[in-house]
């Protein structure tokens, strides 16, 4: 069944509610004939437009690329070319050569098309340019079970970007699971978004631990009638899990571990950090497998093995497992997350590559050597820091300001070093590389 067939077989009519203009099943539309079989890219600001487009396109277009509404024009152009997009649908006025959603949607029931549409999802990078990962509806909806009574009538709050993997999971759970999507309108301030979700009766909410810590700071947090609390994107520590269980005693608290590359991994609902070692047993997870090799977690998606589009190859071993980059330790009946392997720094769910940040710092001619690291943060997990060996004639205060301005210009906010220390020297290895 394509997405349209699944959505049209629902019993509840409301699909999306933003507090003023709900989208009902009867408002859905089909895709204009000329767009069929194409590589369609979608870049829209409103969630209801996104829902209409994905329902119209799945099963009808060859490939469907979802672009974030906040993607820069340069990124959009780059991805368009890398993927071979034949048609870009957008309501933005800063993009070239676009078709407005109204011009590609046709009144009428969306088609129960049988074409095996590839869904192309982007992941965020340290400087912004995203990679594209290939999925299909089957791999994206692997964990949605219609027979799960808790899903029907669920009111899913959306605080994530709906075009990224985590947000798309929420969207598809709501659409395919007979629930509705509660979406604060674009530009809503975070505090107002939480208040709106409480007012709309949000009972299923998915967010990163960093976002949850902020939600818990909101006076309206206790007004959210939550039955299902989901955490993902970052390790969930015992503190935030405990606070959520106490604040929402009626709710089931789950921590989802997933990677965009491998698709949904698994869910933990026992309220403890990490996951049961039993999940490592073959056949234990539906449609996926987990294994630990040399202290790192590897995942295999058995429904639809995914891969990067546009030239990059995923690191896949001979049994089809993908390296997640997460270091783990197995202790008795539990597997615990130790942090990222190699050098990736997790800042509020965004993975920052230190070498990319260093490359930006090196663009300033007064930086002789630098090393980017992290400091732990109880709020976002980690913050990026940098040690810099400056030129002799550099004025430190001025250089610090200039480096921060440079980083703000070239990198996503999470990657900007928050603490820049000037040091006399940095140790070099025998190979001449800065020792981390």
């Amino acid at each position, binding site marked *: 069944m394509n997405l349209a067939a699944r959505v049209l077989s629902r019993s509840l009519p409301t699909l999306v509610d933003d507090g003023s203009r709900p989208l009902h099943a009867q408002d859905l539309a089909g895709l204009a004939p000329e767009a069929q079989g194409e590589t369609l890219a979608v870049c829209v600001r409103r969630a209801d437009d996104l829902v209409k487009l994905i329902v119209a396109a799945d099963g009808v277009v060859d490939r469907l690329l979802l672009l974030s509404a906040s993607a820069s024009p340069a990124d959009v152009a780059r991805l368009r070319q890398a993927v071979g997009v034949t048609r870009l649908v957008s309501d933005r006025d800063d993009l070239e050569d676009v078709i407005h959603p109204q011009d590609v949607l046709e009144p009428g029931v969306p088609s129960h098309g049988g074409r095996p549409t590839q869904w192309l999802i982007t992941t965020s990078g340290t400087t912004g340019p995203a990679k594209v990962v290939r999925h299909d509806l089957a791999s994206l909806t692997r964990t949605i079970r219609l027979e799960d009574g808790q899903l029907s009538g669920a009111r899913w709050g959306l605080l994530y970007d709906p075009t990224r993997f985590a947000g798309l999971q929420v969207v598809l759970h709501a659409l395919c699971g007979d629930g509705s999507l509660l979406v604060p309108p674009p530009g809503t301030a975070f505090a107002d978004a*939480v208040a709106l979700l409480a007012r709309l009766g949000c009972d299923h909410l998915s967010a990163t631990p960093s*976002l949850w810590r902020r939600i818990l700071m909101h006076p309206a947090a206790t007004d959210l009638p939550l039955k299902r609390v989901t955490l993902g994107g970052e390790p969930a520590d015992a503190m935030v899990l*405990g606070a959520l269980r106490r604040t929402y005693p009626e709710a089931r608290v789950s921590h989802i571990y997933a990677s965009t590359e491998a698709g949904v991994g698994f869910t933990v609902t026992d309220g403890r950090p990490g996951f049961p070692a039993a999940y490592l047993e073959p056949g234990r997870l539906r449609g996926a497998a987990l294994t630990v090799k040399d202290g790192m977690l590897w995942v295999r998606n058995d429904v639809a093995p995914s891969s990067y589009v546009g030239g990059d190859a995923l690191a896949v071993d001979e049994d089809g497992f993908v390296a997640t980059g997460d270091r783990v330790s197995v202790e008795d009946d539990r597997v615990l997350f130790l942090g990222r392997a190699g050098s990736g720094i997790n800042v509020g769910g965004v993975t920052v590559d230190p070498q990319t940040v260093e490359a930006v710092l090196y663009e300033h001619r007064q930086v002789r050597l630098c090393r980017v690291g992290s400091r732990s*943060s109880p709020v976002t997990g980690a913050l990026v820091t940098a040690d810099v060996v400056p030129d002799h004639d550099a004025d430190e205060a001025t250089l610090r300001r200039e480096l921060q301005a440079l980083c703000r210009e070239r990198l996503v906010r999470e990657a900007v070093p928050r603490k820049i220390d000037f040091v006399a020297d940095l140790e070099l290895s025998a190979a001449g590389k800065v020792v981390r």
Partner: protein
Amino acid sequence: MNGSDLRHAIEGTFADVWEMEKPDAPQPTLQDDTVLLETGLDSLAFAVFVGDLEDRLGYDPFVLSTEAYYPRTFGEFVAFYARFADHAQTDS
């Protein structure tokens, strides 16, 4: 550091972080009942704020506290810091 010095240090750090993160927005006035989330500081800026306070004061109550406590208002935030003030480790 006494109570009003602590509050002053926290306000000053907040102002510095705001200036870096939201230079085009007017500085909010921080009163006891000001809801932190409604000031407009997002998760990342808040993390920077807490990190800068640790550098300035020598401690981080979010790390020291054994219970998961999330202050909602500025008054609660200052009181939270005051509670752990004897953990301050500064060079002076």
